[in-house]
């Protein structure tokens, strides 16, 4: 009896329609990257490496080359040099510190090998570019201050602005506004 009622009045059909209508008016889950929003990864994220400094602004890297030795893809080149000007924390600093990003597989072993926590995996994941030049991350780029501070916890969507500049495309984050997208 109930079955016949269901068939005659298209109960299942109407149920389906109301379900899709509910979805229709509910908020979409699309993240509007890169135009308006951007995903801020967790702290554990393994993105572009960073070379860090201590609290006095001295480079932590002592050019021990452990990272280069442990790297499975051999993509890190370190050339050490003597230094007495106090740039680093000891008298040995890296003259050249270069990571070949095309070969790097972001495994994070360099991070583990580093005795001074100089090299860390950062949270910058927009590494695509139009020429091979930017596939080489040299010391200057790795040392440069990051847009997203290390202390900030991640795991949510932040506002962002899509910029077209001469250097290329850039999604500039705005850390003040955040939302959890689920």
């Amino acid at each position, binding site marked *: 009896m109930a079955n016949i009622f269901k068939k005659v009045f*298209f109960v299942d*059909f109407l149920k*389906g*329609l109301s*379900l*899709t*209508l509910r*979805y*229709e*008016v*509910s908020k*979409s*889950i*699309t993240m*509007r990257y890169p*135009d308006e929003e951007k995903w801020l990864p967790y702290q554990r994220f393994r993105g572009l490496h960073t070379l860090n400094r201590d609290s006095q602004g001295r480079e932590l890297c002592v050019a021990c080359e452990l990272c280069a030795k442990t790297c499975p893809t051999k993509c890190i080149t370190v050339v050490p040099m003597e230094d007495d000007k106090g740039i680093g924390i000891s008298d040995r600093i890296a003259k050249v510190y270069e990571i070949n990003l095309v070969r790097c597989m972001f495994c994070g072993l360099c991070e583990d090998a580093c005795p001074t926590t100089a090299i860390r995996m950062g949270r910058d994941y927009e590494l695509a570019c139009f020429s091979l030049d930017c596939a080489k991350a040299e010391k200057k780029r790795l040392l440069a201050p990051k847009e997203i501070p290390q202390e900030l916890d991640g795991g949510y969507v932040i506002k962002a602005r899509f910029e077209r500049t001469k250097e290329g495309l850039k999604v500039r984050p705005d850390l003040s506004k955040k939302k959890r997208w689920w």
Partner: protein
Amino acid sequence: MSHELITMDINTLIEVALIIVKVIFVSLTLFALPIPLTWMERKVAGHIQLRLGPFRVGPHGILQPVADMIKLMFKEDIVPDKADRRLFWLAPLLAMVPAFAVYAAIPFGDTVKIPFVDKEITLYISDMNVGILYILAISGMSVYGLILGGWASNSKYAAMGGIRSSAQMISYEIALSFACVAVVMIANSLSLLDIVNAQKELHWNIIYQPLGFIIFLIAALAEINRIPFDLPEDEGTLAAGYHVEYSAMKFSFFMLAEYVAMVTVSVLAVILFFGGWNAPLFLPEIPIFWFVAKVAFFIYFFMWIRFTLPRYRYDQLMTIGWKILLPLSLLNILVTGLFLL
């Protein structure tokens, strides 16, 4: 012939000019309609699936159909090697022309007085006394585009799509016409104008013909090949069905015909069952506005169904057509006849 032309006075000339203007206006509108409709369909699809739909071309992606149109225009027009070239050319036109020709008999409103010039304009190209028959006959013809397009492509999938569409058309045309017959019996006229005028003051046919309306809606969905009855262009089993070999503008002609057919069916549903341009409840009468609003609702409804229901199997399609809709529509006619007596 020459003396007939001379004796044509100024009033007939104005009438003829008016009709030509109306024809041009209606066909241009129909040509332009797929632009907002494709956008709307993709937006509806997106939101139902919790996406946003097109968003990058123009504000809220409103220019996306224009971009698509430009793309379609510049794509390579491929004709398969062993296709029947003449029919391959003819098929998109055969699909499109009937879809447009239907609008010669469709009224969009009664009459409107133009301000300043003291003249009444009828909001239809012609009021045929066989209007509904004409519309059913002509709209049934657009299936030739599908059949011949499928056959001329010389491709298995396309041929299967063509065969499916012809069988589907024959099966559902009967139920569709019978659903219309009951409405004609109530209005006592085949003219669409009379049918609408018989539904004044909320005596809409949907109240008297709920069963007829359901039959009409289901059969119409099958006639215009939309989900859940879009078996002629079933992506899952036939790639793209009858238009699998078509590209560029020929393909867009098929798309155009499909969208215009959807509008036609919405218009018919409004005229036959929802009181045409009569205002709902006790709202004020505004020329054309209510008509367009109702048609827009039905277009939305068809899109809504498309993203709600899955596709029927082919044997289910035939079962619904012959074993359920046809007896029900006959019963509907019988009951309507008894009530009218």
